[in-house]
Structures are given as C-alpha cells and as structure tokens.
C-alpha cells in the first residue's frame, strides 16, 4: 500500500463515518462514490460482489469497508479502512456515553431515549425486509425467511438452528 492510498483511505472513510447517522450501511452510496467513481479502485460489479460477501459473513455490516481496503492495500489496507471508519465516531460515542451517565435519571433524557426506541426497532425490521428482498430469488428462499421469522419470533430457541436449517435447504434445493 502506498502512502497516497493510505491517506486516501484515512481521509475518505474518516469523512464518510462522520455523516453516517443511522448506521454504517446508511452511507453505502457515499462509499460507492469514493471507491468506484472518485478513485476507480474497482468496478461496479466488484463493488456489489464485495458488499454481498460482507453481508453473507457474520459481524458488523460496516466491515465491508475492510474488503474495500483489502482490495487496494491488502491486510494493511483492510485495517486502515476499518479504523478510519470506526475510530473517530467511537470517541464521540464514548464521550456521549459519559455524558449520558452523568445525566442519568433526568426526565428529558429519558423522554428522548424512549422516543428513539421505536425508530431503533423499526430500522431492525427494515434491515430484515431489505435482506429478505435481496435473497428472495424464488419461492423457496421466501419460505425459508417466513419460517425463520416465525421461529425466532414465537420461540426462545437459538436462531442458530434456523441458520443451520437455511444452509441445509440451500445445499439441497438452491
């Protein structure tokens, strides 16, 4: 990895992270602009493939930036991109966490916290819906998604069971 690429990763992803309200994936279009349009590091199809790979792997969705970094700078590029994307906002979150502890119990803070709860839950549901639409290439994946929804909602068994079942169904029929 050259010094130029290092700084392009640091400044590019660092800047993007600061506007990523709502989650790392909210800024996917910005990432596309940086990686494909501004620097020409990879093609459109490569970008989509890397994103799909990061989605299929476990872990925070934002790790997709690690794959972009990997593409231009190997393991060093991966670490640089991930740290640029996570460190600056981590300090902000930590500062906020301290502030929150100091203000704990204030009625206005409690009101704000409660008011944000439905948005948090609604966005979890939305991300599930988007994932489902991406995978529903026929009736079978849609059935797997529906069964898995019911299983996780109505039982307290570990969701790892449905992931295993999904892998078996994929192996057998897809």
């Amino acid at each position: 990895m050259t010094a130029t690429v290092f700084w392009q990763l640091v400044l590019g992803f660092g800047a993007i992270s600061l506007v990523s309200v709502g989650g790392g994936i909210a800024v996917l279009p910005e990432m596309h602009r940086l990686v494909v349009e501004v620097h020409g590091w990879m093609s459109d199809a490569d970008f989509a493939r890397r994103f799909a790979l990061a989605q299929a792997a476990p872990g925070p969705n934002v790790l997709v930036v690690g794959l972009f970094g990997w593409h231009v700078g190997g393991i060093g590029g991966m670490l640089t991109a991930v740290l640029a994307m996570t460190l600056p906002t981590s300090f902000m979150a930590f500062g906020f966490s301290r502030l929150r502890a100091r203000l704990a119990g204030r009625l206005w803070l409690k009101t704000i916290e409660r008011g944000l709860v439905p948005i948090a839950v609604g966005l979890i549901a939305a991300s599930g819906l988007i994932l489902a639409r991406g995978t529903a290439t026929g009736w079978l994946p849609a059935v797997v998604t529906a069964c898995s929804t019911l299983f996780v909602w109505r039982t307290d068994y570990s969701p790892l069971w449905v992931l295993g079942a999904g892998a078996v169904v994929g192996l057998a029929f897809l």
Partner: protein
Amino acid sequence: MSDPPPRPVPTLLDLFLTYGKIGLIGFGGINAWARRVLVEEKRWLTDQDYAETLGLGQVLPGPNALNAAIMVGDRFHGTAGAIVAPGAMFGGPLILLAGLATFYDAYGEVPLVRAVLAGVAAAAAGMVIGTAAKMTQKLKPPPALLAVGLTALVAAGVFRVPLPYVVLGLAPFGIWAARRAMRAR
C-alpha cells in the same frame, strides 16, 4: 409491579467473550444477535435498556452496533469495557473476513458455496424480522410510538429513504409520542 430478580453483572472477561461471540454469530447484522445474547441469554439488559441504547447509537454518527457496544461496555466496565466490547465484536469477524476474502477470490463462484450462502442469508433475514416482532411484543409500545416505528419500517424498508433522514426526521415525533405516553401514566 413486582421487583424482577437482580440482573447479573458481567466481568470484563464476560464482556470480551460475549461480544466476541456476538460478532462471530452475527449473520445479517449485529443488532438482532446482540439483543438475543444480551437480553435473552445473559440477561444483562432488559429489552427496554437494549432498545434505548441502540436508539441512541442510531442518532449518533458511526456504525450503530459499534456505538451501542461502546455504551454497553462503558456502562459495565468504564473505559476498559468501552474498548473490550467493540474490540471483541470487530476482531473475530475481521479475521474471518480476511480469510473469506482470500477464499472467495478462489471459490466464490462454486455453485455449492453460493447455494449454502443463499440459504443462510434467507434464514438470517427472517431472524432479523422475527427479532423486531419479538421486541415490539415485549416493549408493548402505546399506539403513537408504534406508529413511529411502523413509519420507520416503511420509510427505510419499502421506500428506501436514506437512513439519516429517517432517523433525524422521525426523532422529534418519537420524542413527542414518548412525552405524551409518560405524561399519561
């Protein structure tokens, strides 16, 4: 309201191992799994605690699962916790992803691999939707808050409105609805 049994408090090692696990099983995104492990399995947090922390993580810039992990870590073990929890959550998957990137370049187009990944992804999608349904059932939101949540779901999930607009646009309505609900009590 009767007092629930006291909630266990994790040690620093607990935080490390638990967040490491959450990272490595976090198919389809971290948040649904973090809730499953922190609220149902470990009982360190209530559904309300977890949803509030995640909600704040979403209004702050940065990956929301990371912001939530920092706040949970800080809550139990201060600065050390705020480093250990997100570090464990990112460390495992990062190593896995480096391996996967190498593997995928060589085998990604093998139909068998694609089929298994497709099956897992479909199940993970259902897992995420099921988690949202379960949280709604447990949190029992009053109608106004439920409406805010459904609006977030439709705006982000159906119309694909960019998340910053959804979060910042709906926050005032959520806060207003929460204020009304708390006054009514």
